[in-house]
């Protein structure tokens, strides 16, 4: 997959306002209230600027996709939304990230409280080396739920939502490590849903899966959309077309002087617009496959 940076200005960082449509403006849709509002967000690892000047809004009960070539910062931006970048010691966020109007990086904001409301599913399924039941019950248990009956209920409900119940209902006490890749990823989704978050962030959830498992997860996303807000990072453009309501296209700016690459948000719009009628040439080049 070639990087599209040959088409990208290499001299100075362009002003983002000139490149993207104001969030939610162009079509006749009326999006719900914004769940996330990011304004001029830049993310640094030490002194290295990984992502520059991202501004977008994610709306409730929509599936928002982040697409773009490798290394353009999509995962970095995603992890900023639930403060997972805090786990990297040198990571630093500048700019304003608001969740339902409250700044996520404010002085007295607890990262654990943030993550309880904003869950995450990772690229490679990572079930705990515990039983299937204990995997799903883990979240509710650390939130204080002790009642056995309630836990049983929660586990069944989450597994049904993740379309995994029928396959595992007879072996809830078996090790979760015995599940296949697709099952394990659905387990991780069920585990995330068990704490009843507000938002589910998904970092390339299907990239390690076969097409059938991928289809199952995409169906799952459509079904739970009405109860959650979903942001998905994907390098599969067809998936973005199939699944998302809005798409943000990120790209890479190469800084010739320091030989570094910085991610930048190129365009953010309704999915149909991005793929059929994009405003920016870089977007057009990427989605039409002239650049991978």
């Amino acid at each position: 997959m070639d990087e599209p940076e040959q088409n990208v200005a290499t001299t100075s960082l362009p002003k983002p306002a000139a490149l993207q449509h104001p969030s939610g403006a162009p079509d006749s849709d009326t999006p719900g209230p914004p769940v996330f509002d990011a304004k001029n967000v830049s993310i640094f690892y030490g002194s290295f600027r990984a992502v520059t000047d991202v501004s977008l809004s994610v709306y409730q009960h929509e599936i928002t996709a982040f697409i773009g070539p490798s290394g353009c910062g999509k995962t970095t931006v995603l992890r900023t939304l639930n403060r997972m970048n805090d786990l990297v010691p040198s990571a630093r966020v500048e700019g304003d990230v608001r969740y339902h109007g409250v700044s996520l990086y404010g002085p007295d904001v607890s990262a654990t409280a943030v993550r309880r409301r904003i869950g995450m599913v990772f690229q490679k399924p990572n079930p705990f080396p515990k039983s299937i039941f204990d995997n799903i019950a883990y979240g509710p248990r650390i939130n204080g739920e002790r009642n056995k009956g309630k836990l049983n209920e929660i586990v069944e409900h989450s597994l049904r939502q993740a379309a995994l119940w029928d396959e595992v209902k007879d072996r809830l006490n078996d090790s979760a490590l015995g599940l296949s890749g697709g099952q394990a990823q659905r387990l991780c989704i069920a585990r995330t849903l068990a704490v009843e978050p507000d938002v589910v962030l998904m970092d390339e959830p299907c990239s390690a899966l076969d097409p059938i498992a991928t289809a199952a997860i995409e169906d799952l996303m459509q079904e739970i959309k009405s109860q959650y807000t979903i942001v998905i990072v994907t390098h599969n453009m067809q998936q973005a077309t199939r699944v998302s309501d809005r798409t943000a296209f990120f790209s890479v700016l190469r800084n010739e002087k320091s030989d570094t690459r910085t991610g930048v948000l190129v365009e953010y719009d309704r999915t149909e617009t991005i793929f059929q009628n994009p405003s920016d040439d870089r977007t057009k080049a990427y989605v039409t496959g002239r650049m991978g």
Partner: protein
Amino acid sequence: MTIATGQRKPDLREPTGRRRSSNGIATALMVLAFVLMIIPLGFVIFTVIAKGASIISWSFLTGSIPPQVAPANVGGIGPAVVGTIEITALATVMAVPIGILGAVYLNEYGGKGPLARVIGFMSDVMTGVPSIVMGLFIFSIWTLHFGFSGLGGALALGCLMLPIVIRSSDEMLKLVPDPLREASYALGATKARVTLTVVLPAAIGGIVSGALLAVARAAGETAPLIYTIGFAAAANPNVFSRVNTALSTQIFANASQPYVGAQSRAWGAALALIAIAFILMIAARTVTARFTRYSR
């Protein structure tokens, strides 16, 4: 190399010549090394069993310690068995929790900070300290002020066990993959919760195994106990005061006596000590299997 056109068939036989002979030589050397290793091990076990089995009996394992001159069928090593178990248990209770917590600090909290580096370095140095030096250290700071006691022995053994527990637990904790921690954080767990509910359970098999190995080693130490528990001939169930005895010190005392009875008792005690270590190994395996039930 297409067979269809009737060309030469591929040669799939074992490689001949130099590769085959060097393979053979390497295999032979490995078998030889294994045999050489088994021989002294087998010899030790065989000798101890041969010389000590005849004296082993329930009355031997529980009877009180007779004077050195007594013949083999009088008395036994009961107080020494009790002493070894008590002192080693006390040492374990002191060293293992501190060791595990130390490893948790090194791995999860300390990172590359100065305190973590100092602890890691000191722990590595302590692994190499000779056991007699540890015994003298405890002698000078504890026994000289509080007298001989089982507690002093436990302190010395604990100091020997601590660096082993820290290092082996640290290695086990490092083996827990980061994606597991990330998954736990992403569900809204605090760092302490992540460590207690995901990291430690995932590493517990190896940690327990390492701790039991440390215990088995400490149970057999002689030199540090000589300087800290002194010698006792009578049972002393109070591990916190007055001289005490243990299997290793009893072996030391008896083996240097010319009396036949004392020699037999020394061999019997040696066999008992090996049996205790063996039981601890089996316990380690069982516990590890139990805890790693969900890891397959």
